[in-house]
């Protein structure tokens, strides 16, 4: 038995050697740098609607203790009491990732279950491990066999929908994390930075500027093309965005 104990139900231990974070595919993925992460547990699957139901049913949108100051102000101002697509059959199936949730809501849920959002570096390492694979599944070209995404950023269906977290069994990272590519992008803790030059240590990196600045969303979605599904690809949105392109998964830092 490892010194970290068994992973909690639904989570997996992410542990390994320092890895090469970033790539030369895009200026904001540079410079490539060796990053060292302390081991952590990560959710095997994104937070699903059936998971998030406990948060909604528990009236947690009304419980201040789960929310940061700006998050509370945001949900109160707009009278938000549930995810945007909570009543939309295209997005609310129990085994689909919860979506239509702002970064604030994702953070509040994480606090509710005693976890945290992953850092961007944690997410990337969980997606690709220690090799240079393009996608969580490896280097095989993206196809609908592997993930829910939109070639040319133009989905086939005008009225889109999410897919179950296990709809693409090969959409699996080296650590066994499922559905990291496509479907819904995943909120990370970090604020967006146009490159990695801010990271001078490479040890458990975390970029925080201001909670109200844009936050990282990784993995791409059903609205975006295969480039957004690359393990190193970066996207970002204001923390208030609640569109059907974002979801999340959680970590426990050890």
């Amino acid at each position, binding site marked *: 038995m490892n010194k970290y104990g068994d992973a909690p139900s639904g989570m997996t231990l992410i542990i390994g050697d320092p890895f090469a974070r970033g790539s030369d595919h*895009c200026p*904001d993925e540079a410079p490539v740098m060796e990053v060292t992460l302390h081991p952590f547990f990560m959710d095997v699957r994104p937070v699903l609607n059936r998971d998030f139901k406990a948060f909604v049913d528990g009236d947690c949108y009304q419980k201040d203790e789960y929310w940061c100051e700006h998050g509370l102000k945001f949900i109160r101002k707009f009278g938000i009491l549930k995810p945007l697509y909570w009543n939309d059959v295209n997005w609310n199936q129990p085994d689909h990732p919860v979506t239509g949730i*702002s970064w604030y809501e994702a953070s509040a849920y994480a606090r509710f279950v005693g976890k945290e959002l992953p850092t961007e570096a944690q997410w990337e390492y969980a997606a690709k491990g220690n090799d240079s694979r393009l996608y969580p599944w490896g280097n095989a070209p993206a196809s609908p066999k592997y993930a829910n995404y939109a070639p040319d*950023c*133009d989905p086939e269906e005008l009225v889109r929908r999410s897919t179950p977290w296990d709809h693409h069994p090969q959409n699996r990272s080296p650590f066994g994390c499922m559905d990291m590519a496509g479907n819904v992008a995943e909120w990370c803790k970090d604020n967006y930075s146009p490159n990695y030059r801010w990271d001078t240590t490479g040890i458990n990196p975390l970029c925080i500027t201001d909670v109200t600045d844009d936050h990282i969303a990784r993995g791409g979605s059903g609205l*975006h093309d295969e*480039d957004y599904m690359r393990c190193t690809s970066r*996207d970002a949105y204001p923390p208030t965005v609640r*569109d059907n392109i974002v979801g999340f998964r959680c970590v426990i830092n050890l």
Partner: protein
Amino acid sequence: MNDLKVMKTPRIEKKPSSLRYYQDGPPSRVETSAWKLSLSYLGGEKNFAFSLDDIKSIPKRVENRRMVCVCNWSIRRTWGGIYLKDLFDHAGLTEDDYAGLFLKQLSIGTPEKGKYDSTIRIDDAIARNAMLIYEVDGEALPLEQGYPLRLIDFGLYGYKGVKGLSELQISTEFELGHWEQYAGYALEGKVKPKKYFIVDLKEHRFIEKAEVIDF
């Protein structure tokens, strides 16, 4: 007078559908002869109404420019119409009248979903030569792309410009529009520096800021 030969936008068949971003969906049809663009100033202090012929009587500008969508794609097309400033000039409004104020745009709307709206900063829109557009690539705007008229401020994401315009209101309030209230997108709507899919070039490029003039 523009004499730009209009060529088909490369890979136009791959442009993501505009219907996805036309909140209320386009009206099933627009009776052009009955359509008017109303312009009000400070809650009705001054009111104007323009038919499409009125707008087309203002010298047309034809410009090849790049718009950026908040859904991470961008396309450069040839747009025909007038500058927002041209409309204000035509209405006899001066810079002193509208400096520091905001422009709320409202759509024609549909019976099912009503109208949708967006508000932008007038000073920035004027400085960036925001356009009121009635043609794209040499032809009338299709209904799904905003016929008879749409506004684009090329420094902002596409959601900040309403398609199928019916009303412009010059006001003192920077109001949250549909996409901000519904889905939490930013009020300012400025194009953020990050990677986008460039539809007409079929590649991804990092856009530092808009208006994009480098490619």
